[in-house]
């Protein structure tokens, strides 16, 4: 079965979703990522969705679940690059991705991840 590649860079995992995912592929990404967070001792996960032309409730839920699972595994997730039309549609659909941290692009996303991980290292990140 086809898989979305997961790249490791230091303590980060990088994922760029470049295909229109069917539901099984999205579930496989969720499983692969959680396993990889543990095996790679990753502290941060960056998911680039700039190539995605739509995010429906299923893909939105998978992104939320990945963020929640990574948190339980002591890692931070940031989703970057959402297209404006996708954001407008998501909100109208009724999905706010409330548990998911987002950034406009990869650079800002990496900076956000670093800040979050540094803050946790200093023990002042607080809950969540």
């Amino acid at each position, binding site marked *: 079965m086809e898989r979305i590649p997961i790249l490791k860079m230091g303590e980060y995992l990088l994922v760029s979703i470049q295909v*229109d*995912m*069917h*539901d*099984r592929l999205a579930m496989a990404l969720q499983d692969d990522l959680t396993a990889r967070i543990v095996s790679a001792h990753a502290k941060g996960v960056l998911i680039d969705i700039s190539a995605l*032309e*739509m*995010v*429906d*409730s*299923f893909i939105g*839920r998978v992104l939320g679940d990945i963020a929640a699972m990574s948190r339980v595994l002591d890692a931070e997730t940031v989703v970057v690059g959402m*297209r*404006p*039309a*996708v954001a*407008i*549609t998501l909100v*109208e*659909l*009724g*999905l706010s991705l409330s548990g998911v941290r987002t950034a406009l692009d990869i650079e800002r996303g990496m900076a956000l991840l670093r800040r979050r991980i540094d803050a946790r290292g200093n023990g002042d990140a607080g809950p969540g």
Partner: protein
Amino acid sequence: MPVLVSGQRQIQAPEDVVGVRQAVRQRAVELGFNLVDQTKIVTAASELARNTLQYGGGGTVRIESLQEGMRRGLRLVFEDRGPGIPNIELAMKDGYTTAGVLGLGLSGAKRLSNEFAIDSRVGEGTRVTIVRWR
């Protein structure tokens, strides 16, 4: 209402949901939908195609390009011969689910469409029709 182009697709596997998204996108582009409207109708189609697969046990979608006077639109008709929906009012509520999936499918698709109709008979199947005008 004059139908300019009509086509039908099968929805029997998760890959078919992706195929429906791409076919609807292509038709919306042909009709001159702007990017936000394309995204809305494609997302609504994805929700309804998934419902057809998960709750209806598979089915079909008819994709129709419409012309009414000066305006053009896209009509999608999803049909299955599944168990039907006993309580449509309940099924339309946000968060309602029978398969463990966050239930935004029907209500979300309705919000993303200009027209929405559902006809469901227990033991016979379900038909959901949406229209989005350019």
